[in-house]
């Protein structure tokens, strides 16, 4: 990047901030309004929004750093739910055998989620090393489109690989924590859903601190801003790419694991989280991680409103219409995009 673009970036950043805050304020206002009219809408929005934020944050990160629009992102959600189910089932059996064990009751669900995140990380690393690196070496011509189609192939492969190995069955659980629901704002919320929100918030916080405060996180952001510049500053691109892909897939797998009680593991389970994450990312602007986290709550709100006032089947139609409208007026998404040159690829 030349100095000229850096100079121009200053007023843009200021505009970006005010616009972002305006949107956040509006969303919070709408949510507060619903807290009085129909509190369960607020709760649903926060719970699902937290998880879409994990999905969309990872998707946006990979696009920002590696310029890969990952169509297979939902499949890591599927892998996460599958791993969590496999790990949690024996724990559940153990819990049934001795129901008085407090440790199993409280900590039982966590091993599944942790293992899911680890497996997700490994899968992401494999994806980068086995597929993207050879392609990057061969040609970077039309990189964005080619990787999009490549990940479409990966998605088909993983979905049907799952179907081939594990069959077309639903593998789900009714709940992680077998405790009475808690009361929030007069709405009874199951502990599972509350925990999903807590996990999402903690992970987002960790993720944000990692990106902002650690050397590696800074290196990642540097690569997303300018690959060549980052390379000149002595950042090893391969290491960053591997880490980015792994992290993004780990987040998706964690989301799948945490939502196992709502989305039983199934070969096609990833498709809805996938397109919702894509709604978020397109709405927020490709490659914008902070925007994606805010956008996740906007999409969750739209989705919840559609479910409450129009009907379950309209979950896809309403957000789509809204996103198309937004893009007509702001083609680079609500919060603009820091990724340059994507438009022409």
């Amino acid at each position, binding site marked *: 990047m030349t100095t000229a673009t850096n100079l121009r970036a200053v007023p843009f950043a200021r505009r970006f901030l005010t616009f972002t805050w305006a949107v956040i304020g509006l969303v919070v206002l709408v949510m507060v309004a619903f807290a009085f009219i129909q509190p369960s809408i607020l709760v649903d929005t926060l719970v699902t929004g937290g998880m879409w934020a994990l999905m969309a944050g990872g998707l946006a990160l990979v696009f920002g750093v590696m310029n890969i629009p990952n169509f297979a992102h939902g499949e890591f959600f599927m892998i996460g739910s599958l791993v969590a189910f496999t790990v949690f089932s024996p724990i559940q059996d153990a819990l049934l055998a001795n129901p008085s064990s407090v440790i199993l009751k409280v900590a039982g669900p966590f091993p599944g989620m942790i293992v899911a995140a680890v497996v997700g990380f490994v899968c992401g690393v494999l994806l980068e090393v086995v597929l993207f690196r050879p392609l990057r070496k061969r*040609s970077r011509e039309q990189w964005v*489109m080619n990787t999009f189609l490549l990940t479409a192939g990966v998605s088909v492969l993983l979905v049907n690989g799952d179907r081939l190995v594990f069959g077309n069955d639903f593998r789900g659980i009714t709940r992680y924590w077998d405790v009475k629901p808690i009361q929030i704002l007069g709405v009874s919320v199951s502990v599972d859903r509350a925990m999903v929100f807590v996990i999402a918030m903690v992970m987002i916080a960790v993720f944000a601190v990692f990106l902002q405060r650690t050397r590696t996180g800074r290196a990642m952001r540097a690569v997303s801003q300018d690959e060549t510049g980052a390379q000149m500053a002595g950042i090893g691109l391969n290491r960053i790419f591997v880490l980015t892909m792994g992290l993004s897939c780990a987040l998706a797998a964690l989301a799948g694991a945490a939502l196992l009680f709502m989305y039983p593991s199934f070969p096609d389970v990833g498709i809805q989280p996938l397109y919702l994450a894509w709604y978020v990312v397109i709405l927020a602007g490709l490659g914008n991680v902070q925007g994606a986290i805010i956008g996740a709550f906007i999409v969750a709100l739209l989705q919840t409103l559609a479910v409450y006032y129009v009907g379950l089947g309209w979950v896809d139609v309403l957000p789509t219409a809204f996103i198309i409208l937004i893009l007509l007026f702001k083609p680079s998404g609500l919060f603009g995009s820091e990724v340059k040159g994507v438009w022409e690829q």
Partner: protein
Amino acid sequence: MATEAATPVAVMNQVRARARRTSRIASLAVVVFAVVLPLIPPFNGQDYTRYLVSAAFMAAMAVAFDFTAGYINIVNFGFAAFVGVGAYTSGLLAADLGISPWIGMLAGAVTAGFVGLLTGMLTLRLRGIYAAVMTWFVGLALMGLARNMTEVTRGSLGLNVPLLLDTSDNLPYYYVILAMLLVTITVLTIATRSSLGLAFRAIGMNLQAARASGINPTRFLVINFTLSCAFAGWLGGFYAHYYGILTPDIMLTSHTVEVLAVAYIGGRGSLWGPAIIAFPLTIGVELLRTQFSNLPGLHLVLYGLLLIVVMIFWPGGFAGGVRRVGARLEARWEARMKKDAAEAEPEPVPGA
């Protein structure tokens, strides 16, 4: 005469003429082969004829898909939804109003083309990945509509549609879809060879340069997209009246990915590559599916693997391979002609 034949330009022209002749003969041979194929054992059995029908259907869809993906470099991720729009239009017209499926199929093409026009006008101002993702969203929304407007489409219960032909034999259907495939490929090939096609190619290769040379990109992108969607709708009409039952599942993204896989394995930007490769691929996949009916998803695993391998290692696909062979043949002809000319005229008179 002999001196003229010896000049490099003349040799080149001769080689080109011969290449054109050869490719014309080859394509004629392929068409004749496709026509007689269902008469040759083992392809004359009902099962194989059914596979051939789905192969020709897949081929035609891949051609229509390649028309946008290969020429203007916009991947229509909502392709299956446009097929579905055509299928539902034709199916509903026939089921509710009793309109002949033949007219219904054309009406399906018009509707899908119109929806494609609207989608194109909305999304094609965006570039590359944005356009692909937006067409995907539109496709998802269309599928959502088909799922939810149960009083019209009967949703996932399935819409019963009258059949196209008054027979349960698959052979007549094969000739219908083969004819449709040939019309699709002919019309779209003519479109790509016209001045329109030149604009498409220019836009697909370098948008900025095309804009600089006075092409209004959005207009051509929308024309291309609309045409492709109209053919998708027409083919969707055939689907509806061949299977006789329609569910919103026809619009699933996974179907788009299947078409995409065939188009890319066949070789993007050639039209004939996807059409030819669709036959062995689809028939092989159907055979696998019947052989290993206890292993669901096996055929799609294969599609996914092939797509990945082609994307990374063999970006030209099948058409690229054929082109490379063709180029080698041309080089050999050229060398031989030059040698012949040199032997016939050992001392060419300069300036004669």
